[in-house]
């Protein structure tokens, strides 16, 4: 459920850029210079070797989203921008997390993890490293669940997203 007001919600922009050196810096510096806030950012090559895709979650409160899109579009290396509507996109994040856990509580965690759809990556004497892929809210929920155990280290990727299929077929 989206409880934020329409003008002020976060936006997920999928920005297709030329795969050239310095392009990420141009995008990042544009956000800094125009005082647009980035919530998260992920970048990787695409199916076409000349292109990369940057998924940017933009704080809709820092600037009107059309302004962000229009300014991004002025970057010569930006080829395409999609402003994904919540509910009409598939969004995923990956979390790697190491939690403190005594051997007698391991089963407890593994059970929770199974239910959430995660994996055990590594087991230490009194800690475990877990991984979980899911939509950002799902990851948030699981992260909160782990907190009481003691999170030793956590690393989340930025969000990646693609428009939902019914959305892309016209």
């Amino acid at each position, binding site marked *: 459920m989206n409880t934020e007001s329409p003008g002020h919600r976060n936006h997920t922009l999928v920005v297709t850029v030329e795969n050239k050196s310095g392009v990420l810096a*141009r995008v990042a510096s544009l956000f800094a210079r125009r005082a647009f806030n980035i919530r998260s950012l992920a970048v990787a090559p695409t199916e076409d070797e000349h292109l990369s895709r940057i998924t940017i979650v933009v704080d809709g409160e820092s600037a*009107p989203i059309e*302004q962000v899109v*229009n300014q991004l579009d*002025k*970057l*010569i290396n930006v080829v395409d921008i999609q402003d994904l509507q919540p509910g009409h996109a598939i969004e995923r994040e990956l979390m790697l997390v190491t939690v403190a856990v005594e051997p007698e509580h391991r089963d407890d965690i593994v059970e929770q993890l199974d239910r959430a759809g995660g994996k055990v990556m590594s087991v230490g004497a009194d800690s475990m490293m877990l991984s979980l892929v899911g939509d950002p809210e799902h990851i948030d929920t699981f992260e909160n669940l782990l907190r009481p155990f003691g999170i030793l280290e956590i690393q989340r990727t930025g969000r990646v997203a693609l428009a939902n299929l019914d959305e892309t077929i016209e």
Partner: protein
Amino acid sequence: MKTDGGQALIRSLEREGVEVMFGLPGGAILPVYDPIIDSKIRHILVRHEQGAGHMAEGYAQATGKPGVAMVTSGPAATNIVTPLCDAYLDSIPMVVITGQVPTAAIGTDAFQECDTTGITASITKHNFLVTEAQDIPQVIKEAFHIATTGRPGPVLVDIPKDIVDPTNPRSSLEWEDNVEIDLPGYKVDTSVDPEAIQKAVELIQNAERPILYIGGGILKSRAAESLLELAELTGIHVVTTLMARGAFPDSHELCLGMPGMHGNFTAVTAMQESDLLITLGARFDDRVTGKLDEFAVSAKIIHVDIDPAELGKVRRPDVPVQGDCRTAIEAMVSVLRDFGSGNTDRTAWKSRISGWQERFPLVYEPSTPGQALKPQFVIEKLRDATPADTIVASGVGQHQMWASQYWTFNHPYTWINSGGLGTMGFSIPAAIGAKVGCPEKMVWAVDGDGCFQMTAQELVTARVENIPIKVALLNNSYLGMVRQWQDMFYEERHSEVFLSKEIPDYKGWAESMGCFAMRVDDPDEVEEAIAQANEIEDRPVVIDFRTAAEEKVYPMVASGTGNSDVIVPPSQEKEIR
């Protein structure tokens, strides 16, 4: 045909039709300077790289062609940062080529290395770091394409030495007569949406208090003639911003002149009271709007701009029209011709406008004999003694505002100034660039004493390269505009604004740079000095006009206040209830 990167670079510039470039060589760019000897491109050797950049800007503003500057790496690249930013804010087409350390040395803090593309990324429309000689022709073509199309702007091309140095195998390439642009992310759409035009026309037909709010985009789209047609067809009054002076003739009865912080009362107030601002190639700059929430509160907005990011950036338009200004105006004119301009009665509005014009003309107190010159008087005399198509290039400060206010601009491309960045030192190099582009026209720089001291050395360039510009130095011994703010908002506490009354000796300095120079103290000498200057064509001329330091630019909308609170000169205060 086999060639090397340096040769290919110069040939690529020739292929773009470049006739003149402004620059100064150094280590990293050396190999490119050798083929210049055999090129038909005229190279003008500047005395400081900032000068090269402003000259390229002045050339571009006067001719409409892209200006080209070439400098070496490191300190030369940083010296040209100011003109790049200036050109970016005023949307001036310019291509700057910088030398760079050899590719293998990039990132090692090599001698005269700096991250030129990193430094200039946010103040250029685009920049390139070329790493292969083979790419040079295509990149140059792309650079000119980007600089001159859509919303124009500066493009920088950074060239490492090894790919242009003929002794280095990395510089070798195969020259091809045709190269293709490959810019998948750059599309320019100049067409306009007919539905938006239709809506705009409806607003125009029904508006009771419309104003044509004209910005520099009109000049960029070469739409001055179409604008005249639109204004005459509809009978709507026109304001021309600092960037658009000359886009609509000042002598025309529909012209209200410049709006904004130092705009005239009628232009400021007419916008403020308007119910429709037909915004053409302007961008609601804070110097025009004053306090934004108090700006033209009852006006609907039509906003035409080639750059979609301008539509709604500052003020949300009722009818946004993305596209070329001239195309949009022509489309509006054609619909208006078919359907008429409407029957809205605007007599009341017109008489309010003429009322303001009568009560609040631009005024100053003339000087009495023996007193220092009034700067406005000097501008008026200069205006009256020069051909109507004289190009005026100004610096930044009080003198700039007086030049814009008191000149009568009746031709487009005759007013060249630094609007967006407000760069002191702009006028002399910009005037040189304009004169190079338009040698048949008279070119006057109107400069301040503070500005003059920032770039005067380019008068050496002007003399040596035979570019006879003229400089009217409005010398008030102060950083006058800053002094004015201290007078008005800091209880006349003058902090670091007094320059000097005697030093430098401008006449002697100008003479030492090869100029003909005069000093004028007395109002009676002004006309004669200007007449003498106008006769001289074999060298630059500098006239040091000693002007009154306490003179203020009026009207003024104080920073942070609304345009309804415009401050008028003391002699008009009784007119404002």
